[in-house]
């Protein structure tokens, strides 16, 4: 049973909207622990509630419309008041659904990367392409800390440069 679930989601045909998928794919190629499950998907569909029900912590990795490209933010996610539907889903909505369906209460972190282009296309902007391995390394570092039961510190809501995250040897994070 995976203790950590990482979900990268977005539309890969909408340029930077696919950055969450790209980060998740990078993580999948780097992580081999049976305690970590990496999921790449188009959107947060209701059945993912079943996937996260037994997790200790869930990472939601997605693009953002606001912010400086090349940076990323890491925020705790609180449980929402409405469950996800088949078409529109948010991390808080998925947590709400998991809570109502299975009494599951995993912690959750939302890692978002501001994009510049959401038009038709399969390529990421140069800034986001550069950010992908750094964000993946950062999440990997957090995951390692969690698996080793070390404390992690998060500066909720503060945009963080990818470079800063990369050079941080301690899991002080974003």
């Amino acid at each position, binding site marked *: 049973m995976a203790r950590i679930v990482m979900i990268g989601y977005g539309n890969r045909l909408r340029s930077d909207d696919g950055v969450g998928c790209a980060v998740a794919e990078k993580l999948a190629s780097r992580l081999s622990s049976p305690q970590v499950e990496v999921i790449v998907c*188009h959107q947060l569909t*209701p*059945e993912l509630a*079943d996937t996260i029900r037994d997790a200790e912590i869930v990472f939601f990795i997605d693009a953002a419309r606001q912010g400086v490209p090349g940076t990323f933010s890491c925020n705790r996610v609180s449980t929402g008041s409405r*469950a996800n*539907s088949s*078409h*529109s889903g948010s991390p808080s909505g998925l947590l709400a659904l998991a809570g109502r*369906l299975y009494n599951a209460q995993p912690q959750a972190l939302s890692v978002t990367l501001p994009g510049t282009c959401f038009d038709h296309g399969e390529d990421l902007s140069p800034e986001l392409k550069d950010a992908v391995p750094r964000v993946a390394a950062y999440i990997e570092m957090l995951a390692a800390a969690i698996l080793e039961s070390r404390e992690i510190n998060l500066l909720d809501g503060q945009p963080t440069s990818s470079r800063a995250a990369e050079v941080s040897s301690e899991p002080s994070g974003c």
Partner: protein
Amino acid sequence: MDERKTIVIDPVTRIEGHSKITLHLDDQGHVEDARFHVTQFRGFEKFCEGRPFSEMPSLMARICGICPVSHLIASAKACDALMAVRIPPTADKLRRLFGMAQVVQSHALSLFHLSSPDLLLGMDADPSKSNLFGVLEQNPSLARDGIRLRQFGQQIIERLGGKRIHPAWVVPGGVSEPLTVENRDAILESIPEALAIAVRTIEWFKGIMERFREEIATFGNFPTLFMGIVKEDGGLTFYDGKIRMVDASGKIAADGLDPARYSDYIGEKVESWSYLKSAYYKPNGFPDGIYRVGPLARLNVVDRCGTARADQELAEFHELQRTAALSSFHYHHARLIEILYCVERMGHLLEHPEILDKHVRAIARPNALEGVGAAEAPRGTLFHHYKIDDQGLIRWANLIIATGQNNLAMNRSVLQVAKHYVHGDRLTPGALNRVEAVIRAYDPCLSCSTHASGRMALQLQLLAPGGEVLDEVVSS
């Protein structure tokens, strides 16, 4: 002066895609006409022109995020015809498996996520509670079953196709990769739970049907033809066979029709008020050639399902009416029986000794300039028809989708429901929900891949003949 008024329902909620409904009232305020408008435009048939035919399955899968597998299969079958190949037997079985996994997940979405609020909470329930959360509060095990059953289908698609949405595993000539032992065993292991969910959901549904007598009598309860692909022995299939039509009395009106010659017997008409074409059975003309496709139609046209439990349920289903089952409310019931059939049948296919065979693709260059592929999608019969040039580039394409074939019936169903439930120039929430619910019964797929997140608010407008808004209701 024209005193007629119009009620507009825009958008229709809890369906796949965007549409609106207009109800036209006469001088006395009675509903005299109803129209179901599909307000989105796609253009796939046009923009694929000039592309290599081998790209078509992947391109066509993008039509829909819910039923991409059906488009993959129909498109690949059209490409098989262009190459004039017979695909390896194992590829045939794997495509069937793939298609049925999608039927399960799509039907589960329709029933549990979109329609169960109506079925569980009632048609007159508070609209703010008619959602999955409302179902959760009333019957949490039903909600969990819905989640699990959809996940079951999605996971099979992912195991076979590599990803849940828009997998590209089905290719011209077969499939791209054989089934692994690990994936076969994992799918087999999940079947008992899915079977148990299917069985108890059918029992639950049969238990609540009595509450919906009035809806059964008024939800698209009128004579039409029904069409579907059947096996040679008259059994249920989602992959291959001949077209059969039955009439409202349940008698076979046409049988053994070649799907590749669909244009001999299916016509399409364009209406100025919708982007959705209306298909009709040519021998009866337009609009008398109205017919229905999808779960209800399939169970009306087949002689048997072909698996033990589903056949027991089919026998009960055929007892619902002495003729063909005419009410579109029965689409829900038919959907559940098909889920049961698919789960049973997938188990049989996975136990077949050939299922792990490595030879899963026939390779060939184009050997014909025209090809048709047909399959049964969750919502009904699907046709892909391509013409190519000597270089293998697409020169012309035509798609006939299930929702278009149900268009005439959906419009007539809305009219029937509106005439029964809408009185005067105001819509009650219960009447409004029933007008939408009859559309949901068909589970129309209005190309959900173009959906706009968060725009599922409901807007009602009462318009005077000059366009003046006399009344408006907006809910979310």
